[in-house]
């Protein structure tokens, strides 16, 4: 088991190095750039040349990349061009916000998706099943930004049930420990802050959860339908076991493998959904940071680090998924 993990982590390093080179070259070939953004379009050639030199962009790209990698080894991603702060700090501020949002979205997607998928399979062809099929189709097809603005309009503008944007109410005197506001409130016993953070979290999390939720329902339903036809479910019935035992131990346990795979892939893909969701709800996370770093003048150092981070998250999540197989299914255990 340990060997598998080590091998996968080594693969991860190779992947990240390759990706960093790709991203480095790709970013610098995008139209527009930090020079224009910082100096405006009418800057004199002299001033532009000065800034280019100051940022080191006059050197050959290979040299730039080598310097970037050299600093990277020491954990230094450089400084943001826009704010001048170290990239690690900029990302460190935004990271907990997105993790909090993504975690809430996945809790919704899994917590609702697995039971719904199971029920749909059990009521195959009947009303509940048809509703779930229709609902998931809608969930997958509806654009996130549209749903986001729709929910925001209905629940904040018209019904005033939830706050329209942000992670916490202004004037809420919360202590920042981990950057996860819900968690911080619990840790510091500022339960009003936890409540307020949760209240802000609900709409964005629901928005972000729609696609993974729909996918989890679909996969769970299909997987449970497969398992229901298995002989061992009939054996379990022949044993006279209780519904609860048959459902949990015999059906869901076996149906879970494809669901876990899906959850892994969806978690990795959440970041793309987060860009839109965070824009709609003005959520100061990685999604907003990606958006600002591109639109606000190609903040190369921040973008590079963000893309590598996204790849890292994707690979690590899928490694965790692969490892969880071994716990779910003894047949894939490494001997």
């Amino acid at each position, binding site marked *: 088991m340990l060997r598998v993990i080590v091998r996968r982590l080594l693969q991860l390093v190779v992947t990240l190095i390759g990706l960093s080179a790709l991203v480095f070259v790709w970013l610098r070939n995008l139209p527009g750039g930090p020079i224009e953004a910082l100096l405006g379009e009418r800057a004199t050639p002299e001033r532009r040349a000065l800034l280019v030199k100051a940022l080191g962009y006059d050197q050959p790209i290979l040299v730039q990349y080598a310097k970037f990698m050299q600093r990277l080894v020491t954990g230094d991603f450089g400084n943001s061009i826009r704010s001048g702060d170290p990239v690690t700090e900029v990302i460190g501020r935004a990271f907990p916000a997105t993790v909090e949002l993504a975690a809430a979205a996945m809790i919704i997607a899994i917590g609702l998706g697995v039971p719904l998928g199971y029920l749909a399979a059990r009521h195959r062809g009947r009303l509940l099943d048809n509703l779930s099929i229709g609902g998931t189709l809608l969930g997958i097809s509806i654009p996130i930004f549209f749903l986001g603005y729709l929910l925001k309009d209905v629940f904040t503008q018209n019904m005033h049930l939830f706050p329209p944007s942000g992670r916490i109410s202004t004037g809420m005197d919360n202590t920042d420990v981990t950057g996860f506001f819900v968690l911080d409130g619990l840790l510091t016993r500022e339960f009003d802050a936890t409540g307020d953070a949760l209240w802000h979290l609900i709409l964005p999390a629901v928005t972000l959860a729609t696609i993974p939720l729909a996918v989890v329902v679909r996969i769970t339903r299909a997987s449970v339908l497969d398992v229901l036809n298995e002989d*061992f479910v009939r054996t379990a*019935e022949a*044993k006279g*076991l*209780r519904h609860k*035992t048959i459902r949990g131990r*015999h059906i869901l346990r076996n149906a879970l493998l494809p669901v876990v795979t899906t959850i892994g892939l969806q978690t990795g893909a959440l970041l793309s959904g987060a860009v839109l969701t965070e824009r709609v709800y003005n959520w100061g996370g990685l999604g907003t940071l990606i958006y600002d770093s591109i639109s606000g003048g190609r903040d190369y150092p921040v973008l590079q680090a963000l893309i590598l981070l996204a790849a890292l998250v994707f690979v690590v999540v899928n490694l965790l998924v692969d490892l969880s197989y071994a716990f779910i299914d*003894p047949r894939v255990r490494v001997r």
Partner: protein
Amino acid sequence: MSLLDVRDLSVVFQRKGERPFTAVDEVSFSVEPGQTVGLVGESGCGKSVTSLAIMGLLPKRGNKVTGEVNFDGADLLKLRPEDLRDRRGRDIGMIFQDPLSSLNPVIPIGTQVAEVLERHRGMDRKVALKEARELLDAVGIPDPTRRLKEYPHQISGGMRQRALIAIALACKPRLLIADEPTTALDVTIQAQILTLLKQLVDETGTALIMITHDLGVVAGLCDTVNVLYGGKIVERAARHDLFARPRHPYTHGLLNSVPRLDSPRGERLHAIRGSVADNIPWAEGCAFAPRCDNVVDACLDGPPPLEPTANGGDLRCNNPVSEEVAVP
């Protein structure tokens, strides 16, 4: 009183937009305590559906079950689902055909045996696992302590079927239904499993319904044999009578088609001509008529009745094979 008394059991499958299909057609038979009864017939004759109907394991939708299944003073078909659930695995055990697919692949063998003890005998996990070890030992699984923690894919086919037998017999049921328990196994293992079943049934006094298409299994095990064709019982006889003097042309054909080691070399194997696809509906006559060598006009004139024979059996045939015709 019989332990199990099946009366006019019919199972009709009805799918939307399709013609209803009668898989089991007014089947009646009974099982005495400690007796071994065979249900014999080829694929699609309704023998497995009969057993699933007795256990209440048919799908909830798409079929209609009528008749009576009297077990221990109650009609199982009329029991509330929860009450039937209490009896399954406790009073009636069942063994299935394919031991690999019939065991849960992601649960250790020990848990799969223990859970039935926990459910019906109120044991906690620890006690149940201890009992499970004894059961695995009793069905001849070597090194049972180690097997408790192993998964179905880690043990052999014969051992899997032994584990399923241990599960079915865990609560000392009064009736065991074995649905083609040896079909998926190697021939050498088949013999071992049959010997084990016979031994366990003798030791515990459990009655056994043996469902099979294999007459060899019947010959070695059953007291009484019911031969099914097209969903109906066509012949019922004590084992000895059935093998010595098969009366129904179908039974006769079945016995005739068993290859024999002492037949002359080069002799063609006997087969019943045609296939189940040639069957006519029972309403129009004897379903076997199109394949039968003894067919007479009356056979296409509505279903022949099931009538008692001289030696205590039953027969559904207008022109049975003469008692003098011995099986070669």
